[in-house]
């Protein structure tokens, strides 16, 4: 198999693009896809800082690498979830990455903010662990950005993540999730920063290949709580469809963004106000994060 660009020996085949690339040309292809995402959705400018949420995994470190290499003013944000060895190792990967490149890294501990680490939150709430964890992460990312004076958070969500989320929303026709799903969410309130997903055009195999070829030392192990997560079953279903019909995931996500999402965008804006406790944005009186923290405190 030959590189589409230079004709040399290929390192990676991309069936959905009916192409293969050698290592240097794949890295360039990857960066061009990120540039295209940023351009198309006006995600970032080089004039303003961007907070890159990093987990120590391939996606977020690949994203940080591309943005820093391309001259964006990046600060990393690592949220320590307190999930045993997994969190210890993933934090070390982020710190090593930042140190080697001389990039600033902000670390926040969920245990300090919520009152307990994710494993305890899981027990207290009796909900799937990804539920309380996701809620805390979204809240803390936004608050950290506000506190650091950074107007935009970039996350490492890739094409497979986005397609799997879409798949889950579609199976239950969660119309609010469908209306909200986008590679770029504008700020709809002074206390909500912009959120962008510059990797949404790249599959997780592509982000893994980029991280490997760039010799990024990322954590290959999975979060121990992710085992059996619904989103993984959905990724597997999509991977079988992709295997039978390369491009299926891409067409599913991009077709939605082009043709169907507008149908779900609600005419009415939701009524946003500030949480009576923490002052962050919510639709109720007390925000979901403060309710979670209360629940943890009562159980403690």
């Amino acid at each position, binding site marked *: *198999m030959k590189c589409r660009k230079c004709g040399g020996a*290929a*390192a*990676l*085949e991309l*069936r959905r693009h009916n192409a*293969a690339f050698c*290592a240097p040309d794949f890295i360039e292809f990857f960066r061009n896809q990120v540039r295209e995402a940023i351009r198309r959705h006006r995600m970032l400018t080089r004039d303003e800082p961007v907070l890159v949420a990093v*987990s120590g*995994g*391939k*996606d977020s470190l690949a994203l940080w690498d591309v943005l820093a290499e391309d001259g964006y003013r990046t600060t990393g944000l690592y949220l320590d979830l307190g999930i045993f060895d997994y969190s210890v190792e993933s934090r070390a990967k982020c710190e090593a990455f930042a140190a080697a490149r001389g990039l600033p890294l902000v670390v926040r501990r969920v245990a300090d903010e919520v009152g307990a680490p994710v494993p305890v939150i899981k027990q207290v709430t009796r909900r799937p*662990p*990804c539920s309380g*964890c*996701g809620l805390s*992460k979204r809240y803390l990312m936004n608050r950290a950005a506000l506190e650091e004076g950074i107007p935009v958070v970039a*996350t*490492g*969500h*890739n094409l*497979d*993540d986005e397609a799997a*989320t879409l798949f889950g929303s579609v199976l239950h026709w969660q119309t609010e999730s469908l209306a909200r799903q986008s590679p770029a969410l504008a700020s709809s309130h002074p206390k909500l920063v912009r959120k962008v997903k510059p990797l949404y055009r790249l*599959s*997780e*195999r592509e*982000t*893994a*290949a980029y991280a*490997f*070829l760039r010799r990024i030392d990322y954590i*290959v*192990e*999975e*979060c121990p*709580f*992710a*085992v059996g*997560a619904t*989103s*993984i079953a959905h*990724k597997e279903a999509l*991977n*079988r469809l*992709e*295997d039978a019909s390369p491009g299926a995931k891409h067409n599913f996500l991009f077709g939605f963004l082009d043709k169907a999402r507008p149908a779900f965008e609600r005419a009415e804006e939701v009524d946003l106000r500030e949480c009576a406790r923490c002052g962050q944005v919510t639709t109720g009186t007390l925000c979901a994060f403060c309710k979670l923290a209360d629940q943890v405190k009562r159980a403690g």
Partner: protein
Amino acid sequence: MKVVLRNPRREVEVAGNRRVKDVLRELAILPETVLVIRGDDLVTADQVVADTDVIELRPVMSGGRA
């Protein structure tokens, strides 16, 4: 040849001197779900691996919901 699998890390022995895609099929692994790594390089599915090679099949799926 030796194949290193991950999550959890384990090793299996399979026949070599054939294409990577045949190894993946024997192990019932979809090509889209792994990187095929030999030493410091990625290997495409049409390449032949030798009986003396060691390859790592590294899963690319990241889990849970962010």
